[in-house]
């Protein structure tokens, strides 16, 4: 029983690391633009599908992975320029519906381009499963966790140790006032979509060798990433990391102990509990005067 529970936790950590990457995209865009981008999961799908199809066509895996992340970033840029920027004067609800439309459109496009068959991607490194206190993780799990470390450390360094990062934090704190100092809010909004899409793409590329890639995987990943982001706090990147791991572990433990049908249900139950007891999320800040 204990051994099984430990295995569920380990598996949850791997999924949680992916959820955290998708959640980081949600948080990044929300912080900079105040917008919840429900198309975020599709960036992960584009990363996974592009990497898998390029690798299947014979491209070396590292090159396929790199191009896939680039493709996700380009799609993020196009989404912002074609769908979000022209409607920047619209209300928040309208913009949310635009992102929901983007989500459906990207999934439809993926269905058109790649079809319904799953695509596989080889693990980035071979070898036996890694044993940790009696539990086992596939070697790809190290790549997943490593990508979390790289992405979140890079985001930390950017926000805390660059003037551009400090300027983004100032813009997040008060966009109208930041603009009176010449801080370009539209440029930040554009790059938040590009970077969030790239991070989503990294998540998709990393998970593809474990789950394979399908045209509709973005829906599940997007929902999980959204729950993780709200769970951790929509204004907190560390919260996205924590929310991702909590959600991944809870889902796997619930799925293992009861039934896989319980996985998402329990995840959403935890979300409701957190929102009732701590509406700003686990690490988010309470609303303050602007």
């Amino acid at each position, binding site marked *: 029983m204990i051994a099984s529970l430990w295995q569920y936790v380990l598996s949850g950590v791997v999924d949680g690391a992916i959820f955290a990457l998708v959640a980081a995209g949600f948080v990044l865009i929300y912080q900079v633009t105040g917008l919840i981008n429900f198309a975020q999961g599709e960036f992960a799908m584009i990363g996974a599908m592009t990497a898998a199809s390029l690798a299947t066509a014979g491209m070396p895996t590292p090159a396929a992975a790199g191009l896939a992340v680039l493709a996700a970033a380009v799609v993020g840029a196009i989404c912002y320029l074609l769908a979000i920027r022209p409607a920047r004067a619209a209300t928040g609800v309208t913009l949310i519906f635009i992102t929901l439309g983007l989500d459906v459109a990207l999934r439809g496009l993926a269905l058109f381009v790649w079809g319904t068959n799953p695509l596989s991607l080889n693990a980035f490194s071979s070898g036996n499963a890694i044993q940790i206190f009696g539990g086992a993780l596939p070697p790809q799990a190290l790549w997943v966790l490593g990508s979390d470390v790289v992405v979140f450390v890079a985001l930390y360094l950017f926000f805390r*140790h660059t003037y551009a990062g400090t300027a983004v*934090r*100032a813009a997040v*704190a*008060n966009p109208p006032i930041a603009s009176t100092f*010449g801080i370009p809010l539209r440029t930040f909004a554009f790059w938040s979509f590009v970077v969030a899409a790239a991070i989503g793409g990294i998540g998709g590329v990393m998970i593809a060798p474990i789950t394979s890639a399908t045209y509709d995987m973005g829906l599940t990943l997007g929902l999980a990433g959204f729950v993780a982001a709200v769970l951790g706090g929509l204004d907190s990147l560390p919260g996205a990391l924590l929310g991702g791991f909590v959600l991944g572990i809870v889902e796997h433990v619930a799925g293992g102990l009861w039934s896989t049908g319980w996985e998402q249900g329990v995840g959403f139950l935890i979300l409701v509990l957190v929102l009732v007891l701590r509406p700003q999320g686990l690490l988010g800040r309470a609303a*303050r005067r602007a």
Partner: protein
Amino acid sequence: MTAPATAPAATLEVRSVTKRFGGVVAVDDVTFSARTGEVLGVMGPNGAGKTTLFNVISGVQRPTSGDVSLRGLPLTGRLVEDVASCGVTRTFQTPVMFWGLTVRESVEVALAAREFGGTYPPSPLRELVPSGLGTSGRLRARAELRERADAILTRAGIAPMADRATESLAFGEERLLELARALAVDPTVLLLDEPLSGLNPDEIEAVIASIRAARASGVAVLLVEHAVGELLAVADRVVVLDHGRMIAQGSPTQVAADPVVIDAYIGDELE
């Protein structure tokens, strides 16, 4: 305080600016100029259109008609950030902080905005790599920016709170930081909206000293202030608004003695 003997060229030109909100005329055909190295007081009762005028000058709102220019460069129609990049900076009636930043970071981000000008923000990669690997030029530039931020905080009298989060500041400290932050961008025109309200006498003295220092360094300061005595003491010239219209302009002595102004505003304030 008297105006300079030979008035320098106008820095900021406000020409026939009108701003309507539906049927309400907030600013009505206002024309004036502000010169390099002078404090231009903007007086008027509540609702006279002073803050709307600042909003128009800083690009927050577009005028219904008329235009604003800075050294001949049209500002009207530009984005707020573009107007700021041209050298127009402002403060607000209620000081607005960048929550989540420290006091020093608040000034550093303003300094960096000025430092990097049109290329702002600087490339994050260009910044990250040197700070991580430690090339001497980059580190020196970073250290210099920090020293300049600390010097500004010292002049503003808030150096001891450099590492404090902005959320922890008292109201008066917020005002001092807001002014320090505005001066950090080395503005050509500085718009101050009631910078003395809510301050204690020591803080008022510090703010007035900062305003005089800014004037001495060549900044055109536009000062909206309800503390009439302090405004008349620090201003070189004054324009007076009432119901959106400019009803007088001149030296503080002329304006203080103008019967129209006394009737509309000063009389009430000085009673």
